């Protein structure tokens, strides 16, 4: 009972324990924020991976799985499987439409040939499409392209005066639209007849039906031609803004769905040798954003048939080795992977078992009916992996990084223990006489130990709770804090300078009385707040600082959910290390000779 009274009084009557609580709180908050962000980051990576590839993926390297349609059907017959979809995965070179010169830029891209309908069911591809409908500016560019492409047909039916007006309008728009919005649409409406509008609309159906943009992306076709949906970061034309949104450079000039690209892929023969590269010019139909920068900067989607053709994985006739004119069978089209999504409540691991069973049945069912059997499961190139296993090479390092951070930041516990140890050492020294008094009044050694352990425990608990609150506040608002760092409010600088000047004034006034402490504290305050104000102005002048760079961390938003299991472990750790820091001084206090303690000054 007396321990409670003394602990409370010691806590409330001194500044040291309050400083200790604040220090423990800051340490705990730091660990909570760092581990929460890292855990959130890992979760985002994993969940993005799952969204992009379904729950389980059957892969057979570059050769591909023949008769994959049968496998897909068999999988979809199973009630535990919601949907399955084949993909053809390969690498290629994409020639971009920019720059304006003849030498165009090329990007190395991971090409996924997909069946958009079933692919959407497995991965939510439709939600990742970035452009839902064109903006007014983008529509003007589409109109500009359509008018330019049909110029001769349009001019034919016009009077000379109107011809010149059209030419002037389109040329003028072309040269200024890069920098400002000219509303070409209104000008064209005045100048073109209904018949001419029909001609234009027939050229690009997005002009009359802007919503078709999304549909074209979903179907991977534009004007009847197979098209490309590219990752948002594949194109250098898309620039990420500070608020996380995207704008297209040069006033939407390099908006990809205006253009076509040339895709070149390297087919590989069944014996592993290279075959002549295949190229195809395809229109861009849309762009997608998965949220994972690595994927958004390198992956493109094309119709599966196109990818099969480019990689020579489409169906082909098998001919007699001695007489090539004799057709001995058909080599079926192949898919390099089959992705699937499980029904509600089915885990990826359960689905993996189901997929293994179905794959075996699928292979067995084809025995005797075809001379091209799918690979057996003993083939090392065939894998049936869960999304987690498939992503391991990507998520593994992130996981390791998190553990490294957790370990490094756990050193903070030692800082906490050392801090408490030094504070308690000082407190025990200061309280030596009190210890003697208590012993003379009959207090036991255990009773003395308990006073200081309790003291350390309370500092640990209060510090941890403060740290939890602080960590939670910072984590929850981390994106807002990051935005504010990108563009710190000028008010912060003003307030900081006012405090700085006030501190200077106090330091001067109190300093005149000959006191040293107010001068030291005042000058420190002047430097600190003056520094904050100066830093804010500097950052503003530099155009803000971006710590969380999406191109490095894959995501444009910083994870802001507190990792409660880690936070709880941090709290318990902080309290334990506070007790650890207090136990040695407490034992020292208990062993103090009461007679000597009573003489302590």
């Amino acid at each position, binding site marked *: 009972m007396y321990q409670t*009274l003394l602990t409370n009084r010691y806590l409330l009557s001194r500044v040291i324990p309050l400083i200790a609580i604040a220090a423990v709180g800051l340490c705990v908050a730091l660990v909570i924020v760092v581990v929460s962000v890292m855990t959130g980051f890992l979760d985002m990576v994993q969940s993005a991976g799952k969204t992009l590839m379904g729950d389980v993926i059957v892969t057979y390297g570059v050769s591909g799985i023949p008769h994959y349609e049968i496998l897909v059907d068999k999988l979809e017959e199973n009630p535990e499987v919601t949907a399955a979809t084949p993909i053809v995965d390969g690498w290629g070179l994409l020639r971009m439409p920019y720059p304006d010169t003849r030498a165009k830029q090329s990007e190395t891209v991971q090409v996924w040939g997909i069946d958009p309908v079933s692919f959407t069911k497995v991965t939510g591809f439709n939600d990742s499409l970035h452009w839902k409908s064109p903006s007014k500016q983008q529509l003007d560019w589409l109109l500009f392209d359509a008018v330019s492409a049909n110029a001769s047909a349009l001019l034919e039916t016009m009077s000379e005066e109107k011809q010149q007006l059209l030419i002037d309008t389109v040329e003028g728009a072309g040269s200024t639209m890069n920098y400002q919005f000219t509303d070409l649409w209104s000008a064209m409406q005045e100048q073109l007849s209904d018949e001419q509008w029909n001609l234009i609309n027939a050229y690009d159906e997005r002009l009359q039906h802007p919503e078709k943009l999304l549909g074209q992306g979903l179907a991977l076709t534009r004007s009847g031609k197979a098209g490309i949906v590219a990752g948002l970061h594949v194109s250098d034309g898309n620039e990420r803004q500070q608020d996380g949104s995207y704008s297209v450079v040069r006033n939407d000039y390099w908006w990809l769905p205006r253009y076509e690209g040339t895709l070149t892929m390297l087919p590989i023969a069944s014996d592993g040798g290279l075959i002549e590269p295949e190229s195809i010019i395809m229109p861009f139909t849309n762009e997608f954003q998965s949220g994972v920068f690595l994927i958004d900067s390198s992956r493109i989607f094309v119709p599966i048939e196109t990818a099969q053709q480019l990689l020579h994985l489409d169906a082909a006739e098998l001919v007699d080795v001695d007489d090539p004119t004799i057709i001995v069978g058909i080599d079926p089209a192949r898919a390099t992977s089959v992705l699937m999504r499980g029904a509600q409540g089915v885990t990826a691991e359960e689905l993996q078992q189901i997929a293994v069973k179905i794959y075996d049945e699928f292979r067995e069912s084809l025995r005797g009916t075809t001379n091209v059997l799918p690979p057996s499961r003993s083939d090392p190139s065939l894998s049936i992996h869960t999304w987690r296993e498939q992503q391991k090479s990507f998520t593994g390092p992130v996981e390791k990084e998190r553990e490294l951070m957790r370990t490094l930041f756990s050193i903070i516990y030692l800082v906490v223990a050392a801090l408490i140890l030094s504070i308690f050492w000082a407190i025990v020294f200061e309280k030596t006489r009190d210890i003697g008094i208590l012993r*003379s009044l009959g207090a036991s050694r255990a009773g003395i130990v308990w006073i200081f352990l309790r003291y350390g425990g309370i500092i640990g608990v209060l510090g941890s709770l403060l740290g939890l609150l602080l960590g939670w506040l910072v984590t929850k608002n981390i994106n807002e804090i990051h935005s504010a760092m990108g563009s710190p409010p000028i008010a912060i600088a003003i307030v900081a300078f006012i405090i700085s000047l006030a501190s200077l004034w106090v330091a001067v006034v109190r300093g005149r009385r000959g006191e040293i402490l107010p001068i030291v504290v005042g000058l420190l305050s002047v430097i600190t707040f003056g520094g904050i104000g100066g830093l804010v102005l500097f950052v503003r002048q530099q155009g803000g600082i971006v710590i969380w760079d999406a191109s490095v961390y894959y995501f444009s938003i910083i994870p802001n959910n507190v990792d409660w299991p880690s936070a709880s472990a941090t709290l318990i750790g902080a309290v334990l290390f506070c007790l650890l820091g207090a136990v040695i001084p407490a034992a020292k206090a208990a062993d103090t000779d009461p007679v000597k303690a009573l003489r302590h000054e």
Partner: protein
Amino acid sequence: MNSTPLLQGINLHKTYHLGKTKVPVLHGATLDIQQGDWVTVLGSSGCGKSTLLHLLGGLDRPDQHGGEVLFQGESVWDKSNKEINVYRNKNIGFVFQFYHLLPELSVFENVLLPAMIGGRKTNTDGARERAILLLTRFGLDHRMLHRPRELSGGELQRVAIARALVNEPEVLLADEPTGNLDESTGDEILDVLQGLHQDGLTIVMVTHEQQIANRGTKMIHLRNGVV
């Protein structure tokens, strides 16, 4: 005559060790304190008066084979640590020259502290009432919620006496209780002790002043560590 003294020091030896140097303080001090005595121990500074008090009060241990302290006929230092703590808490009340109050606690809390240390339920077993009674008796009822730093020297020593008495000890051990006070305030404190003695309390008080020692009913001279 009482057959068994309340408190006895038998052939007490105590040597302090200052590094490698041995400083002998008591060389076989023996004394009997009967129930109701007010024993004053007179001696010059450094003669071992305080040490004798500490040994009697169970605060310090005699040298090995350095004599015995008997309380009601039982050896104090044969007790377990826990029992010695209880002995200090229940049977002995210490009053020090420099008061030794805890600065973070109020006057009332300081007085109640031994009761709390003894594990008494202060709300129900009358300790609070006794603390209030003692403070009122010593004219400190208006100072109960004050902190020690707000009190004068005489008031502080009266609070220290009240604290020593809250557990109703058998013996009050006072170590130069007036040594830090002016003469008139010292007299006030001695009057308080006299009142307590008249109520039947056994007191052992050490002092270096003959005049103060004269206030006791029994005087012991301590010279060169021997009574």
